[in-house]
């Protein structure tokens, strides 16, 4: 996957060699090498995992993604073994993944990499970051360098978010 921005301790950066391959369907999976780092649909991910991973005794090599209509609760038992979760934006105007991200982070305790995929554009990045996304697969026809500027957003947040759990009046 190229055109990726990731957040790190040192700040946001463009990922030079992103190892992840996004898989939409079983057909795509057959075509992809079994040893690559894949982001699979959650149901497919479950199918492909060795028993030890499913039992929670071994780390998975692959990540999975959730469609906007999928619930987060069923993934809970594998949070400890999955290296990456991606959430889909079928359109940049579809806001369901913001809520999914919020619930994954604040309620289910997901602390690993949370990637925004799909119609991911510069002007939505700061909202995504606030909701707990830590990497962003920018739409490939857009400049990733340019998109970096979208992360800063606005310095004042009245309400609360994943990265700012307190309402502004509790921070004054």
């Amino acid at each position, binding site marked *: 996957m190229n055109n990726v921005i990731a957040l790190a301790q040192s700040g946001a950066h463009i990922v030079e060699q992103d190892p992840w391959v996004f898989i939409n369907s079983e057909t795509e999976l057959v075509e992809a090498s079994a040893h690559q780092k894949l982001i699979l649909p959650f149901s497919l991910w479950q199918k492909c995992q060795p028993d030890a991973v499913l039992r929670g005794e071994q780390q998975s090599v692959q990540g999975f993604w959730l469609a906007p209509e999928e619930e987060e609760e069923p993934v809970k038992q594998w949070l400890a073994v999955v290296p990456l979760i991606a959430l889909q934006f079928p359109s940049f105007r579809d806001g369901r993944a*913001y809520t999914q991200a919020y619930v994954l982070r604040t309620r289910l305790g997901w602390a690993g990499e949370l990637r925004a995929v799909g119609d991911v554009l510069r*002007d939505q990045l700061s909202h995504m970051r606030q909701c707990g996304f830590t990497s962003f697969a920018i739409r490939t026809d857009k400049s990733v360098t340019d998109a970096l500027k979208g992360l800063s957003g606005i310095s004042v947040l009245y309400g609360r978010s994943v990265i700012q759990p307190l309402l502004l009046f*509790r921070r004054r």
Partner: protein
Amino acid sequence: MYSYDDYDYALVRERVEQFRDQVARRLNGELTEEEFLPLRLQNGLYMQKHAYMLRVAIPYGVLSGNQLRTLAHIARTYDKGYGHFTTRQNIQFNWIQLEQTPGILDCLAAAQMHAIQTSGNCVRNVTTEAFAGVAADEIIDPRPFAELLRQWSTINPEFLFLPRKFKIAISSAEQDRAAIKVHDIGLHVYRATNGEMLLRVYVGGGLGRTPIIGLAIKEDLPWRHLLSYVEAILRVYNRHGRRDNKYKARIKILVKALGIAAFAEEVQREWQAINAGPAEITDQEYQRIAAAFVAPAYEFLPAQNFDYNTQLFKHAEFSRWVARSVIAHKVTGYAAVIISTKPGISAPPGDVTAEQMEVIALLAEQFGFGEVRVAHEQNLVLPDVRKADLFALWQALDLIGMATPNAGLLTDIIACPGGDYCSLANAKSIPIAQAIQQRFEDLDYLHDAGDVSLNISGCMNACGHHHIGNIGILGVDKNGSEFYQVTLGGAQGNDSRLGKVIGPAFSAAEMPDVIEKIITTYKDYREVDEPFIDVVQRIGIDPFKENLYQNSASPQQQPMEVLP
């Protein structure tokens, strides 16, 4: 009124710069129109029939004299010299150029105003009633709650791309004047017997093509949980609201599909996970915000004023204006005054010129404490006028053509801009409103007809709230021609109801006759001072129907003419 602090200023300034950059990227082609659309809508910028329209937020309808002067300046500099006040306490400018928008937003920011989230699929401007803080029947001032909600919903990252627009209204008087039951969320603040502030929460109300009166989802929400409860509703809606069909995407469709009990359960489950701890509003924060709305320094005035009583006695016209435009105030010796934006043929409902705005700003300072309100009915309100000053105020308003004594009467028409401006409209609204206003120019007749609300929408999006007008008019398109469908019996307020369609639609030219026949039928059936809406409730719509369609001139009703 609420004054910006450093945080508020920083947010609004940064937002202007962000939008300036987005406009520049649109102009140089970096952003496609499709990508720019939601960004500009979140800044209140629409593309209309002739030009861009900018909708400016007037949070809970409160304006200072200086803010009104800023709006006048924008009207004069960037528009054609006027602005249009809407039913949701916004003002719209109809002749804006994209390149000028950042400059306008700069002007607004300097006056502690903005256009953030006045459009788009996000939480819109939070509204309340025009008499908040002064109404004699007020329980608790709703403005601090409205301001808490304004802040919480402004650029709330999780809820900027909802399935559809989201409107919240809040009221706290015995009479609901904010139409809370026709909003996505309606809040009524009241006091428990132990004095605690509680909220009754309505959800799933709205007009448009599926008009629905909101249902109570929670009866006694402790005020501290206002934000967490609204957050729970929005989260459930964001996840489960329909996105496959724009016309079925409002929360009312979700509430209807699930049923209020099942929806309430979903919200309850979500709310229980978030209601404790940091989501609660603190006493300190409530006090901080409420302090901005403390009552001004009212004088101790006698309940009776000799001069005022004499003026009422001597000037029939003044007395008539007082009867319609002056509202009881909670402080003795004061009154709230409705300034009618419905003069008739000279201006469409809600339109106010830059000069009028400037005079009203001055009058607010001269005769009040410098505050102006915007009413749901598209009128303006001066909330604090000494009764002794009413006569002088009336004379001053008369000079600018804003002393029409028609508040609550048939000519106090709520109308959307319709086909003259709006690209969604199927039919014109303004010429219909003006033709009706012209027909009912006779003040004696009008005052005799008493309280009647007449609402006109140019399409089924219902911006003119025609469903809740006692008389509602909806513009429809039939084979390329404009026709008007009439509903009767709608009402806003405590007893909100949707009107019933009376029969086949009429042509534009017929509308003044149609309304006159409706009023004549009402007068025939009324008992003593019985108001219009009560008569419609008592006798139903059939007598009106009979009178309208009997010997009707409507082409759709006439039998085919047989030529010899």
